[in-house]
């Protein structure tokens, strides 16, 4: 029968080995050679857009890359779906945006801010998502 000592060795050994592999895989998947995000395209505007995205907690209602709240549309391929003009209207609207009867917060962003957020979406749009992009976008009708 298994002794307590062996059980402890199993715990410590298993943890150490998987942890080391995990660190190795982390370094690998963040390395430049296998980048799927077009990291070089992260301009200052994209970063400003991301900061607006974070500081207003858009993720509390929307998902992006499939993460966030399940209350409002997934925004990963939103530019493909709606076009930049529509999005600008959403973001700059002084009253709660609700064409389908569910309210978004009325941020009333300035034009520059709206454009920064759109730049952020534009960058997100081009990420290689291992196939998820074809599932979340209605344009996927054409893709699969």
């Amino acid at each position, binding site marked *: 029968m298994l002794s307590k000592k062996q*059980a402890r060795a199993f*715990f410590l050994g298993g*943890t150490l080995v998987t942890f080391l592999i995990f660190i190795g*895989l982390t370094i690998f998947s963040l390395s430049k050679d*296998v980048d799927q995000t077009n*990291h070089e395209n992260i301009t200052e505007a994209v970063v400003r857009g991301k900061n607006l995205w974070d*500081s207003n*907690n858009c993720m509390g209602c929307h998902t992006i890359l499939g993460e966030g709240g399940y209350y409002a549309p997934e925004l990963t391929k939103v530019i493909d779906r709606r076009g930049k003009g529509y999005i600008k209207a959403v973001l700059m609207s002084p009253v709660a945006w609700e064409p389908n009867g569910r309210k978004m917060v009325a941020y009333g962003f300035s034009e520059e801010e709206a454009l920064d957020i759109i730049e952020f979406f534009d960058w997100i749009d081009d990420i290689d998502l291992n196939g998820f992009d074809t*599932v979340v976008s*209605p344009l996927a009708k054409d893709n699969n």
Partner: protein
Amino acid sequence: MKYKSQKVAYWFFALSMLLFVLQLVYGFIMGFAHAGFDGLHDIIPFNTAKAVHLNLLVVWLLSGFMGAAYYIIPEEAQRELVSVKLAYVQLISLALVGVAAIIGFHFNIWEGRKFLEIPRGLDYLVVINVLLFLGIILTTLFKGKRRTTTALVLTMGLFFAALLYLPGMLPFDSQVTDSFFRWWVVHLWVEGVWELIMGGILSFLLIKLTGVDREVIEKWLYVIVGLTFLSGVLGTGHHYYYIGVNKIWLIVGGIFSALEPLAFLAMALFAVNMYRKGEKKHPNKLALYWTLGAAIVSFVGAGLLGFAHTLPQTNLYTHGTLVTAMHGHLAFWGAYAMIVLAIISYSLPNMTGRKLYDSSRGRMAFWFSNIGMIGMTVAFGVAGVVQVYLERKMKMEFMEVQKEIEVHFYVLILCATLFVTGIILYIIDFYKHGRPTDEAIDLTSTD
């Protein structure tokens, strides 16, 4: 109760219950919003409600874990806590940081990353608070007469939970890297180190409630936490399938996360077998209900419902839908909420001297809350599956689909009402136990 300082736990549990109730209020706000009634939108928009719901959940669970540690560690180490005063300082500062964060969420002050919404400034205070907590626990443990496996596993869980908070504080320009490290906190907490905390509390409770030999219980504890890390660390990959990193995670994450239910299965079998084996039948039946309940419901919520969407082929369609919310609820409830309610049910009579071991109110609390939560899980599940089908197979618009599934949120609210009734009964029971007292010290019994 054997040591006076164990009484500190009572106040952590009381804070825990208070925040729990508040968490549920915000749950209702979101439930109603999904059902089409967002009357509070101007004061509490959905993203505020969600951030509050999640952060209160985390804080009340942490407060419960800390209370558990303050109760368990003296008894395991066989000495008083090194400082009761500092423990109260820690309690009050925890409450203040938590409340400050929650208030901030109502004024658009946050970081906007799910589960890690607390702004960075406050993050530093959280770190100081947790360091103080760990300081008290670790010095007590090292000055103690014995160092048991149960105490070590519990402390290790708390220590690594603190350490893993740090990757969540790193700033990144890339949304993808940001998300990558967000999972180091969220996933490695709930599918890693928190399972150590759960395992430690579970093992303490089983030793007390069943009378099975400590050596046997602690051996299996090592096996369980061994399985946890063996599968859970690389299992993090199930969050990396579709966020913009290499495809290797589809294989690694798929295989290892598919093994994660084993740890929860082991936990359930372990608890049930120890109960069967036990000669001693402890009179505190309610504590036993919650203890076995936690082990079993966590297997269903985390193990089975986690497995249901963890393979990359399935997750491609369910990723970021209400299917995830279905799993999140039953997993958090079974594994962490129930284990906190179990240690409270066990320790409360010992701290207050009121042996309300088997009240019908207590049993109703157990059944109402569990049946209510299972109903909520089904409601989320049906809504989620319909959403996946209409939106991701039939390619309907998101908002059109939301109208189709509104009705399931009526069911959700109904079940949530039953759930909350159970929780209110639990809290009435808590209140009826009265305050902790030194007179409850009992050196002869094994509790």
